[in-house]
């Protein structure tokens, strides 16, 4: 008896079926039962985009050219991973100067997320990264 009083679904038992129908139709507009924001947050926190995006490297100035300029990089990575990846490809030490730019325009912070950069700045599905050994577009 007491548990029935605490069960909110029983209070509307007469209209349950119609409520369910309207929920199914309108979930995107007005959810009747608000989801727990903390649970939603858990989802965003663990939301690691497993997809890979194509990064295209383009050398500027005297920077060495890569034989294969296209690479697939996991979208949830930070831009730092792209910087390190390019350094490895070029066999550059940490002390060798190397500057990376998106679309010959700006230098993202190393903690920016690759998927965000790809969503915002890709051209024909490729995130174009220009690199050089001296600051170009400062």
């Amino acid at each position: 008896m007491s548990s029935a009083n605490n069960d909110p679904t029983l209070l509307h038992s007469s209209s349950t079926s119609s409520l369910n129908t309207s929920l199914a139709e309108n979930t995107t507009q007005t959810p009747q039962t608000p989801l727990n924001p903390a649970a939603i947050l858990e989802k965003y926190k663990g939301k690691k985009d497993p997809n890979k995006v194509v990064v295209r490297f383009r050398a500027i100035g005297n920077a060495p050219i890569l034989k294969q300029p296209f690479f697939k990089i996991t979208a949830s990575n930070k831009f730092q991973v792209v910087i390190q990846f390019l350094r490895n490809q070029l066999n550059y030490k940490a002390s060798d100067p190397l500057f990376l730019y998106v679309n010959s325009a700006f230098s993202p912070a190393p903690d920016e997320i690759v998927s965000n950069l790809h969503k915002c700045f890709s051209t024909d599905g490729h995130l174009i990264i220009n690199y050089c050994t001296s600051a170009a577009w400062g």
Partner: protein
Amino acid sequence: MTAPQNPITRAIWDGTLPIKFSLDSTEAAALGAKAIVEPYFIEAPRCSYFPLWTSQIRKYFVDMALNFIGDDAEIWYDVDGTPLKWHYPIGLLYDLHTGYRPDSNSPPPLPWPVTVHFKNFPADKLIKAQAIDATQDFFMSMIKEADFLRNGSTKKVMNLSKNDQTQLWDGLWSKNYDRFWSVNYRLVINDGQMPKNVPMRIYLPDNCPVIQEPISPVDENGNQLTLGDVLHQVLPELFPSPLPSENASASPVPVIHGIIPQLEIPIVWASQNLCYPDNFLHIVVLLGI
């Protein structure tokens, strides 16, 4: 040179936070501090950056007999064990890390307690500045990124004279509103053209990845989108409607510069008036109380 009068950008520029800097106690002992070192207090503009205060903070603690001869770039800050990203504006860090809702009944956690570290730079969590002017470089890069979002190129920033570009940074660190805004308003107004995308980032609590997407300021019919429309579009589960919820205090809210803006404001207006000096609208989403 004076900037166009805008009481909103002026109020945001003048916004400050009292901050209490304390030494990490184990580090203090290791660095030769004999007694308990009194904390250092500053009132920092919300739009400023921690590295702009580092030399002043360093001088205070070194004068208090702290033995430190390293580079300023070694010095870092944390709150409750979480390192603070020095390339984020101070006001954004406060809103993000305190999670303080301006509509709550409790007083704000001020002065904001921040711990200063002179050792053990967490290179896995923070970017290590390679040069003394790294903060300026990061700042200018953000302005270019914002311009690229608005126009699909950085032409507007690159067309500024070298002098005007320098004036943006100079105005910021010297806290000179007119110097900064006389140049910056040309960027944010975008010559009166509707931007392609609004430069904005959304921050959720608990270290969720930062959200940045191309956000058009208008819908397919050319109608201006509101802040509520954009939040609903990007985070439909947290903002099930573009309109304010009836149970306001239980619902997630956007916080910018320590205030909860109305969801009905056009997103372009928000971008032009409520952006940080780096030209981005940095929105912290806080959950219900």
